């Protein structure tokens, strides 16, 4: 038999059998999960009581752990917030240029090719990665009951990472790039990011090694594996001499899609799995199912990226495999969704008291929607319409903004008062941030989704013209810019919130 056919069958059956084996092991109780695992995130007297923002109840047991790496975590959070504002300004420029090409049209440094690329790289490497790392690393002491180790290494990692992002962005402005989407940073600069990533892993693994918990909570599984997967992806994809031609495109999209699925998504899901039950005051609906969701992601995700190249000159079997695996992602997604939504549904009233929970629940809902949407439009039938249209952009923002960014907002707002030991002076501004941001992303995703679909229909219309398929998107692009403006406004609010809690001395002290 053809060697490729063997590979195809093996990849498919190993993933399926792996998942099946894990479910059977769970049912047979061969996976040793202590009965108290799901409750391990609660301190004494915390179980059964919701944790509204207004009374940031912080017992002494958490205070020492929360502040064990105060300086580096604050550095991660503040630097990423600044990148977020800068990145969304570039995003708005790119959006405006699509329907008003004259906008900044005479500025050579601010042409579409540069602002769009800057937007993508700043948001991915400047905002999402360090913000997710900051919140996830802040949770590590809480989940291991050990203060974070090697705090200085973490701080240096944050500084090196940010230097890398600054240099990478200057490179993009000057036109010094690797010329591959998601991998634009010039490769010598990527070494800085790789080194910084490895340096974040040191405090993580050292703390986990000293852990006082017999069982690692599901959040830790996601965080640990994200920090193993990302360096592998990043180093292989940036070793450019390894791939050329079609292989290069394959390696490119393998990386680009896995950045979402094996880096940002696990960190975001980990944060949801901690904060959702924690704020509600009850363990997640089914802890065993959450472990299954983790392994499903681990077994399926790596093959998914090739659906970006459907219709291109990649081998047919590779596209087919990717379509099947993308559809298979529905399995972990549905199990994760059940856990999130059943847990929320029973305690919906807590949303009234906690803005952080609103961010988290919005993120969990977006994760379900955008993931199922992703499984659907990787099928060739849908891909035929949506490929090469704004639909893809809408989907990417639903995932990276509606899900990850909203969860990170929640995570940062949960962590900040406990890090600095003061409450926010004006919690109404947090609430305003939530509403402006969620309104923004809903307008954004819906308008661009509809516009993209119509664009795809017109592109396939044999009596239509390419020009017509462009023209019909203009009103949707204008609405998208409105959504984008709201998102940028909400980020300015967030910047104000972060600065104000850091500067206020008089703010209410958390007890």
């Amino acid at each position, binding site marked *: 038999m053809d060697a*490729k056919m063997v590979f195809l069958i093996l990849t498919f059956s190993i993933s399926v059998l792996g998942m099946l084996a894990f479910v059977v092991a769970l049912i047979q*109780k061969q996976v*040793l999960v202590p009965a108290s695992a799901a409750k391990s995130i609660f301190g004494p007297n915390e179980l059964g009581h919701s944790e509204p923002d207004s009374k940031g109840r912080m017992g002494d047991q958490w205070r020492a752990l929360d502040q064990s790496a105060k300086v580096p975590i604050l550095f991660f959070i503040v630097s990423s917030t600044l990148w977020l504002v800068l990145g969304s300004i570039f995003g708005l420029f790119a959006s405006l240029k699509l329907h008003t090409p004259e906008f900044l049209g005479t500025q050579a440094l601010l042409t579409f090719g540069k602002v769009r690329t800057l937007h993508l790289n700043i948001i991915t490497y400047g905002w999402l990665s360090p913000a997710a790392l900051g919140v996830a690393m802040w949770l590590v002491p809480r989940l291991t009951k050990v203060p974070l180790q090697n705090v200085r290494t973490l701080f240096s990692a944050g500084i090196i990472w940010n230097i890398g992002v600054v240099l990478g962005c200057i490179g993009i402005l000057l036109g010094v790039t690797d010329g591959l989407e998601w991998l634009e940073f010039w490769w010598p600069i990527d070494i800085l990011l790789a080194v910084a990533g490895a340096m974040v892993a040191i405090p993580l693994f050292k703390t986990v090694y000293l852990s006082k918990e017999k069982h690692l909570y599901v959040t830790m599984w996601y965080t640990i594996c994200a920090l193993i997967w990302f360096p592998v992806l990043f180093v292989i994809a940036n070793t450019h001499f390894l791939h050329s031609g079609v292989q290069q495109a394959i390696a490119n999209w393998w990386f680009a899609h896995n950045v979402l699925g094996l880096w940002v998504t696990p960190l975001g899901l980990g944060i949801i799995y901690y904060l959702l039950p924690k704020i509600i005051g009850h363990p997640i609906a089914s802890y065993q199912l959450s472990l299954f969701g983790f392994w499903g992601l681990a077994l399926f995700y790596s093959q998914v990226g090739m659906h970006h190249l459907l219709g291109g000159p990649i*081998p047919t079997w590779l596209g087919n*495999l990717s379509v099947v695996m993308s*559809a298979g992602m529905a399995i972990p997604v549905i199990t994760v969704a059940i856990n999130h939504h059943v847990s929320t549904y029973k305690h919906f009233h807590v949303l009234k008291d906690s803005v952080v929970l609103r961010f988290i629940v919005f993120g969990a809902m977006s994760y379900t929607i955008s993931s199922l949407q992703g499984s659907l439009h990787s099928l060739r039938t849908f891909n035929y319409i949506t490929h090469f249209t704004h639909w893809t952009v809408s989907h990417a923002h639903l995932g990276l903004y509606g899900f990850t960014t909203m969860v990170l907002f929640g995570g940062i707002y949960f962590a900040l008062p406990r890090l600095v030991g003061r409450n926010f002076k004006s919690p109404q501004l947090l609430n305003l941030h939530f509403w402006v941001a969620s309104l923004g992303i809903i307008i954004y995703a819906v308008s661009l989704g509809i516009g993209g679909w119509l664009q795809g229909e017109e592109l396939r219309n044999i009596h239509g013209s390419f020009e017509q398929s462009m023209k019909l998107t203009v009103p949707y692009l204008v609405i998208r810019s409105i959504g984008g403006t709201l998102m940028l406004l909400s980020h300015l609010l967030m910047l104000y919130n972060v600065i104000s809690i850091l500067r206020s001395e008089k703010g209410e002290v958390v007890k």
Partner: protein
Amino acid sequence: MNFKQDRLENEKNDPLESSSLRYINIPIVLIALFVGFGVTYLTLRTQDTSLGLGDSRTVPSSNAANNSDSTSETKDPNDFAVLMDKGKRVYTTTCQACHQATGAGVPNAFPPLAESEWVNGPPKQLVAIILHGLQGEIHVKGQKFQGIMPAFKGQLTSEDIAAVSTYVRNSFGNKMDLVPIEMVDQLKEETQSRTLLWNGETELKAQNWE
């Protein structure tokens, strides 16, 4: 030691225990559905194509593309052998994806060419379909089809169309005369203003193809 204790704890009638395996039947159902989908998809989608090649391309079409035009120019362009040779290459690159290498088409999707009354009918009618495409209902060998065939007038030259018409009228068990290039040119002239696809068999039957 710790593990043993946990295990014993698990097996007690702990109220949490009963709930911790809640919803565990859902992944089993999902996995079963996925196996069904995956096996079907991979089997149906991966047959008939050489796995190492790109999407929708087949071995002969790539070979044909590589061999490019090398037929001798001294021969009469309307020579039967020349038209058949060129027609075969046009067929593999342009027509075969839908009508298949055997000319048998795909049931309910793409009509057969082998022993088709439309292919073996008036030559002008066949050329007209290739030139302007076809949309809507058409009966071929007693089977009803409802699909779209794009127009090829922008993509194929008169010589290409004459060649491929000759080829399909003399392959897959069909045995008819050759289609001269001049006939394609003439029909192009007559239908110059046409921009629409032929509207199914009703419009085709209403024309005079003599």
